[in-house]
């Protein structure tokens, strides 16, 4: 277990959750709930903490929990940490969210039936990831019920050890850059550290499941505070393409490379023409989210400027080896979630 893994698993976003005014029936209104939400967790899972806190103030009726930030209803299948990284340019600690228990905006959000919905979404993502990695999701589907339960439990409760135990059975391996062989040796079973050089275990080069959240700005900004607020999901384009780790002689595959490979339309000079097929959002046969983003246009642009790449709450240097990023910063469902902000000279290409 690497240090980075620990930080990733233990990472929590401090939330100050306010009950929406329209749902307050007591005087005085209930104080906001202060919770630490795991980055790798999902907002609906906080129900068990929030419900007792706010139950006294709620109007009578059936509770369906949903969250919003500054008027923007939050998609529940996106991990909490990602939402935070995406929507708070300047990290707001604690992050002020508004919780609703009524009036679920079915026109904007997918229905969520509580923990089970989240769990199934997680499993689906896991299957998707397995497919990307192995070409099939047999290992996931063949997972025993108790293993499934425990896997979810470990994710739910943030138990890294228990997770490792179960996930290792999936044999999804790690990702390795050929080049990095000398630097990083990877073993599915052994701990991974950036300094270790071990004999190679099971090394894969291949496709990395990535979910990229992109928004563009036309104007430059220096401080994140000045960054334009994302007030509409339409402003965010959701790119669900795997990344092929290419070996380049003399050069390892960096994060920068990965981003550019994912966004050829913004970086037309890149030679990763093969990634163009990523324009088609991969939709696995399993149940999954409907991507709401339209197909990005093929208009060639001038090179956009990468303003921000945020993964797990940090902005790694773009030179960082992508393989390290993947191995250390991926979510439990084996996806790497990245938030990218590009400055584009033209009017917004992605609407």
């Amino acid at each position, binding site marked *: 277990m690497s*240090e*980075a893994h620990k*930080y*990733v698993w*233990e*990472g*929590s*976003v*401090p939330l100050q959750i306010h009950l929406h005014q329209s749902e307050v029936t007591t005087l005085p209104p209930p104080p906001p709930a*202060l*919770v*630490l939400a795991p980055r790798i967790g999902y907002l609906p899972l906080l129900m068990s*903490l929030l419900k*007792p*806190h706010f139950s006294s103030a709620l109007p009578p009726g059936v509770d369906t929990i949903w969250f919003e930030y500054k008027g923007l209803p939050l998609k529940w299948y996106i991990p909490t940490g990602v939402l935070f990284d995406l929507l708070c340019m300047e*990290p707001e*600690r*604690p992050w002020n969210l508004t919780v609703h228990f009524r009036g679920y905006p079915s026109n904007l959000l997918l229905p969520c039936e509580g923990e089970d919905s989240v769990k199934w979404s997680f499993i689906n993502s896991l299957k998707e990831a397995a497919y990307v990695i192995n070409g099939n999701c047999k290992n996931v589907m063949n997972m025993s019920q108790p293993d499934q339960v425990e896997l979810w439990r470990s994710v739910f409760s943030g138990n890294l050890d228990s997770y490792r135990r179960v996930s290792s059975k999936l044999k999804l391996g790690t990702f390795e850059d050929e*080049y*990095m062989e000398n*630097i990083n040796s990877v073993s599915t079973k052994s701990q991974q550290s*950036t*300094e270790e050089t071990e004999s190679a275990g099971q090394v894969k080069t291949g496709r990395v499941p990535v979910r990229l959240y992109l928004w563009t700005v036309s104007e430059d900004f220096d401080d994140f505070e000045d960054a334009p607020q994302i007030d509409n999901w339409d402003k965010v384009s959701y790119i669900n393409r795997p990344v092929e780790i290419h070996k380049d*002689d*003399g*050069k*390892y595959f*960096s994060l920068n490379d990965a981003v550019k490979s994912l966004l050829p339309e913004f970086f037309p000079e890149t030679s990763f023409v093969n990634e163009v097929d990523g324009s088609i959002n991969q939709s696995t046969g399993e149940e999954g989210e409907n991507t709401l983003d339209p197909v990005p246009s093929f208009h060639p642009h001038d090179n956009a400027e990468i303003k921000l790449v945020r993964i*797990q*709450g*940090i*902005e*790694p*240097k773009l*030179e*960082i*080896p992508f393989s*390290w*990023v993947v191995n*250390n*910063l991926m979510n439990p469902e084996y996806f790497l979630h990245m938030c990218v902000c590009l400055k584009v000279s033209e009017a917004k290409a992605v609407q």
Partner: protein
Amino acid sequence: MAKACCKTQEEIASEAIKHALKALRKRHFLEEAAHAPAFQALSRPFVSQGSEWKEKVENLQVELQQCYKAQSRLSEQLVVEVAEARASKASIQEKETAIADLQKELTEVREENSHLKLDLEQKIKELEVVMSENSELKAQLEQMTAKAKNAEAENKMLIDRWMLEKMKDAERLNEANALYEEMVERLRASGLEQLARQQVDGIVRRSEEGAEFFLESNIPSTCKYRLNAHEGGCAAILFEYNSSKLITGGQDRSVKVWDTNTGSLSSNLQGCLGSVLDLTITHDNRSVIAASSSNNLYVWDVNSGRVRHTLTGHTDKVCAVDVSKVSSRHVVSAAYDRTIKVWDLVKGYCSNTIIFHSNCNALSFSMDGQTIFSGHVDGNLRLWDIQTGKLLSEVAGHSLAVTSISLSRNGNVVLTSGRDNVHNLFDVRSLEVCGTLRAAGNRVASNWSRSCISPDDNHVAAGSADGSVYIWSISKGDIVSTLKEHTSSVLSCRWSGIGKPLASADKNGIVCLWT
């Protein structure tokens, strides 16, 4: 070159990795490390409090249930109590109304009672009154019956007495008849006697000393002269012995001598300092002595008209004076200082003083000059011895003051007049009353009104307050004449020694001479 690149790339890579780790660490510190403890701390009390509150709530709910149960029990009780209270209130109300009624009845009955009491009292009072009246009437009845009895007895007794008296009367009548017969006899006899005496007396008288002067005094009837003698009143008049000269003294302090034949003033004796209250003249007609209100006596010599003596010693007005008929030396005077003084004219001073508690109004010497007759305010006549000044005898003459003493010519009878309008004649020797003279209109005018006996000792003349002069006959005992001329009270009457005239003086100072 590739290796160099790789090296540099290695470095770059490891640097980037380090940076990433650093960033992760930093984020950790900023996010969960910073907030976890606070959130925990905040949540714990909520959580624990939540459970506490839950417990409390449960307990309170249990209590509340119990309270509800108790409340329901109490409200049941309350309902019961309220019903009972209402019932008792109703009964109280009834009782109160009953009480009010009873009180009303009670007051009414009390009123009746008081009325009845009042009535009863009234009746009792009336009854008492009636009973007392009854008892009074009973008593009266008894009295009446007793009176009646007494009256009957008296009646009986009176009848008896009357019978007795009648019998006595019859007896007396018999006696009277007998006496009458006797008296007729006597009268016949005395008539003869008197006739004889008179004749004898006349003879005798003529043979007595001074018989030449004797004249039959007649009863005067007319006023010969009316003299305005003195201003203010004339109280003292006096005839000279055996003469018709009249001496008068009055309020005007003068003593005048009149000739009564002519009615003219002969002389006027001056020198008296006060009103002349009484006059007397010596037997030889030489000296006139006047008693004055100035506490003095004045002695004039008639011929010269000068005052010979002034006798002082009295401390009050001198109201009576007399001179001895024998010696002409002794003068006696009485004053209102309760004294009677005897003066010696030769010596010129008082030789004796008699003090008596009752003032003397009138004086007279006896014929022998040894005894003084005095008439006093207490109505008594007294006799004094001139030498010793001792009281010889005393006799009650009048019921009021004696105003006049005058001796009869023969000296046997003294006439006293009193304020009781009675004129008494006393026998000198026995001091018994031998005659009493009265008259209906005769009122003695003053304490010093002087009356006199006629020279024939048969008549008395006295003045009256009504201005008339009454003349009585001694033998007849009755008025024989009333002389009216004066217009005011007659104070003094004097009969001349020669029989006429009679002089009277009144309060206005007028002197009438009657013949």
